[in-house]
C-alpha cells in the first residue's frame, strides 16, 4: 500500500459532512465509513476526527445527540444541520472545480509547438 496521503487542511471537515449527509452516525461509524470509501488511502488519526466534529458543532454545521447503538451501547450521534447541508454543497462545488482546474493544468498536453 502506498504511503497514506495527509489531508489538505480543512478537507477532513468536508469529508465528515459528506459522511453525515448519508445518515446520522457516531464517531467510530464515521471513521470506518471514511476508511472504506478511501480504501485506506487517507491517513487520519482517529482523534483528529473528533476534533473535526467539535469544530463542526461549534460552527453549527452538525448537531450531536446521545443515542443507543444496535448493541445497546450509549453513543454520541452526529447529524447534519441545514446549514451544514448547504455548506457541504457549496464546498463540494468549489472543491471539484479546484481539483479539475489543477488536474487539467498538471496533466494537460503541452501546447502544439
Amino acid at each position, binding site marked *: 500500500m502506498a504511503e497514506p496521503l495527509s489531508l489538505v487542511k480543512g478537507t477532513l471537515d468536508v469529508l465528515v459532512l459528506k459522511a453525515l449527509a448519508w445518515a446520522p452516525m457516531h464517531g467510530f461509524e464515521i471513521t470506518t465509513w471514511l476508511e472504506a470509501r478511501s480504501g485506506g488511502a487517507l491517513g487520519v*488519526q*482517529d482523534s483528529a476526527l473528533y476534533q473535526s466534529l467539535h469544530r463542526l458543532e461549534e460552527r453549527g454545521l452538525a448537531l450531536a445527540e446521545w443515542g443507543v447503538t444496535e448493541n445497546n451501547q450509549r453513543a*454520541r450521534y452526529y447529524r447534519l444541520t441545514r446549514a451544514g447541508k448547504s455548506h457541504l454543497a457549496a464546498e463540494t462545488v468549489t472543491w471539484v472545480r479546484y481539483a479539475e482546474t489543477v488536474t487539467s493544468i498538471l496533466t494537460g498536453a503541452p501546447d502544439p509547438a
Partner: protein
Amino acid sequence: MSSTAGENIRPGIRRLVHLALHRGDHARAEVDEEIRLHLALRTAQLTREGLSPEAARAEAERRFGPPDEARGRLHTSAERREERMQHRELVDAARRDLRVALRGLRRAPGLVVTAVLSLALGIGANAAIFSLFDQLLVRPLPVPHPEQLVKLVAPGPRSGGSACGEVGECEETFSYPMFRDLERGKTGLIVAGHTLVSASVTYGDRTVPGRGALVSGGYFRALGLQPALGRLLQPSDDETLGGHPVTVLDYSYWQSQLGGDPMVLNRTIVVDGQPVTVVGVAPRGFDGTTLGARPLVYLPLSMTPQIAHTMDGMVNFDTNRRFYWLFAFGRIAPGSDIERAQTAINTVYRPIITDVEAPLQEGLTDKEMAAFREAKLELKPAARGQSQLEGDVRTPLVLLFAVAGVVLLIACANIASLLLVRGASRGMEVAVRLSLGAGRRRVIMQLLTEAMVLAVVGGIAGLLVAHGTLKLAASILPTSAASAVQFGLRWPVVLFAVALTIVTGFVFGLFPAFHSTRESLVTTIRANAGQIAGARSTLRSHATLVVGQIALSTVLLVAAGLFLKSLRNVAREDLGLAVDQLATFTVSPDLNGYSPERSRALFRRLDAELAAVPGVTSVSSARVPLFTGGGWSSGAQIEGVKYEPGMDNATLINLIGPGYFRTLGIPLLSGREFTTADRETTGRVAIVNAAFVKKFGLGGEAIDRRVAIWGDKEPNIQIVGVVADSKYQAVKDRLRPIVYTAHLQDGKLGRATYYVRTSGDPARVLRQISAVISRVDPDVPVQELKTLPQQIRENVAVDRMIGTLSAAFASLATLLAAVGLYGVLGYTVARRTREIGVRMALGADQWNVRRLVLRQVAWMTLAGGALGILAAVAFGRTARSLLFGLDEHDPATVVMAAAVLAAVALAAAYLPARRASSIDPMSALRAD
C-alpha cells in the same frame, strides 16, 4: 411543529437543562465516554480481524493517537466548543431580544416618548450635578500621590490679628516666624506655606489684573511637580527677604497672554510694580492649590516685603508672631500616616507655643490662656488643596445631588409603572410563552432588553440635557466661581452617565420583568378570564409605586418651597442703603507701583471727573468693597469705656471717602460726614454706626469721644458722626458694629472701590465711567465695573442657584408623579369597566362613579403626601445651613406644598373620573 423549529428549540432547551457550572465537566465526561466507545469498537473490529485482544487494544490506541495527548487535546477542543456555542447562543438571544424589543416599542410610541423624556431629565440632571460635584469636591490636585497632602490647622484662641479667607479659615493661618519654625523643624513632613494676593502682571505693554501666589521654597517640592519650562521655585529662592526677584508663570497665563513663547525665560515681567525675572512655567493642568482662585504668577515668600506691602499688619511681619496670614500644608512621607505625622509635628509646635508664644499673648482671659497653652496642631487631608470654597459649596452640592437622585428615582418609578401596565396587557402572550417551555429567565431577559433600550435612548438624551443644565448653571454663577469649573461634558461625566443609565435600566426594568413572569400568572389568567390578566396584584404594585412617587415629589415640593421662601427673604432683606441707581468699580493704582501721593492725586481727579458726567448725582469711594464677602475687622477701645480682657470688642472697619453715606443712601443720625477738609494733616476722625453705639453702650454721647483701633494704645481718633446700620460683607450678614475712618487720612492709600449714584439707570452710565477713567489715567486697569444690584445678585448667587434648581426639579418631579397617578387611575377605570357598568345599571349616578375614582386618588395622595412630609421633616435639618430667615419646620411651606400636591392630584384625576362617569352601562356589560 416543523422540523426546522425543532432544530432551533430543542438544543436550546437541552442546553438550558445543563447547569452552567458543570458545563466543562460535562463536556469532558462526554469526550471520555466517546473515546471509550471508539476504542472498544476498534478493538473489537481488530480482534475480529485476527489480532489478540492485547495487540488489538494497542493498535486501536496507536491509531487513535497518543492516549494522554489525544485525550487532552479533545478535552480542550470540547471545552472550547461549549464556550463558543454558549457565547453564540447568548449573542443570538440578545440579537433576537433586541429585534423583538424594538418591534414592541415601535408599537407603543407614547410609552417611549414618556420614558425617554423622564429618563433624559433624570439622568441629565444627575450627570450635570455630578460634573460639579466631581470637580469641586472629588477630583484631587494633579500631583503625584495627592492622598499624602495634608493641611495644617491651628485651632484655639489666640491674640493678635489675622488675614484669612479664600484659601482657608482663620484657624488655618500662621504667623511668618511660626511658619519658618515649622518648616525648619524635624517633622518628617515637607511643609509649604502659601497665600494669595492681588497682582497686576505687566509683560511688555499688556497689564493683566489677577491673583498672585506667594509660596515658600518647599511649595513645589511638596507638590512633586515638574516644570513645563525652565524650573520651579526652590528653597534657594526663599532665603533672603527681598533678595530673590524671580517668578514662575501659570501655564494658562503663559499660553494665552504670552503666546506660549519659550523665549520668555529669563525675561523680566512686572508684578505690582515690581520687576521680577521669569525662571519657569508651572506644568499644564495645574491651577494652583486653591479652588476657585487661579494665580497668574507664583512668587517666593521672600518677596513678601515688595508684594504684600499694602496689607495692614504686615509691618514687621517677619518678626511679628501675632499676625497670622500665611496658610500651610505639607506632604506626609510615604509609609507614614496622618496620626504619626501629627504627633511628629506637634513635638516641634507645642514647645514653641508654651515657651515662645505664650508669654507674648495679650488680652486673653485666664481660661483662654490655658486653652492657648494646650493648643495642638491638627493635620487634615488636603488632596484637593486648600480653599474656603470647598466648605462653602459642599452642603449645596450634596443637597442638589440628593434632589437630582430623587428626581431620577421618580422617573424610574414612572417607567416601571408603565412597563407593569404593559406587561399586564401582554399577560396572555407571556403566559403562553412560559407554558411552552421558554425559561422564565429567557423571558425576563427579553423584557429587560426592552427596558435597557429605553434606558440607552434616555441616557443619550440625558447627555444633551446635562450639557444644557451646565450651561444654565454657568450663567447663574458669578464669574469667579464659574471660572473654577469647566461647564462642558468631560469623560468622567460621560462615564458616570453611562453607568447611571445601565443601573437605571435595571432598576426600572427588573421588577416589571419579574412581575410579568410570575408563577401565579397562568392561574391568574384562568381565574380572571375576560379581564386584563393578573390585574389585581399588578394594580397593587402599580399603586405602591405611585404612592412612592407622590411621597418623593412631596419631599421635593417642601424643599423647593423652603429654598424659594429663603430666597425671597434674601431678596427682601433690608440692606440699609439705597441699592438701585448705584454703579461701582475698583481701581488699584498701588498694583501699578503708584505711591500714596500719586494715588491720592488720581482719586481726586476721578472724584471731580466722575461727578461731571451727565446723569451722575453723587460720587464716593471706600477701601473695602461692599457685598463681596470680604471685610476688615479689629478690636476697638473707646475712651471712657473700661476694657476687660476677654471682652468682645470686635468691630468691622472700612475706610471711606467724603460724602459716602449720602452717595449710598445711608441716613446720617447725628454729627457730620467726612469732607475734603479731613486730610492727612488734620486730626484723625471716625464715624460709627448705631450698632457700634449700642454695643459699647455709648448712648447719646458718641460724638467727640475718641477710639483706638488696629491695636493702637491711645484712643486718638475722634468720632464725628453716627449713621444708621447697613450691611457690609454680605446680604445674609446680620447688622454689625462698624467704624468708618477717612480714606484720605490713610498713609497707605493705594486702592479704592468707587460708588457712583446716577439719576437714571446705572447700567447706561457704565460705559461713560469707563471712558472717564481711561481718560484720567489709561495705565490703571478698572476692575469689577458693574451696577450695585448686579454685585448683590452675585453675592447671593448660590442661593439663587439652589432656589432655581430646586424649584425646577420639584416641578419636574411633581409632573412625573402626576403622570404616574394619571396612569394608575386610567388603568383602574379600564379594569373596572364592567363593575362600573353594573353599578350604573343598578342605579348609581355619575357622581357616585366619580367618587370611586376620587376615593382612590384620595388614599394614594394622602398616603404619599404624609410619607413625604414626614421624610421632609426628618431630613430637613441637613438643609438648615442653606436657609435664611426661616427654619426647616416652617409650617406655611408644608401647607403650601400639600396644597400644590392636592391640586395636582385633582388635575390628574379629572380625565379618568370623567371617563368613568361617561361609561355606557350597556356596552360595558356586553364587552369583555
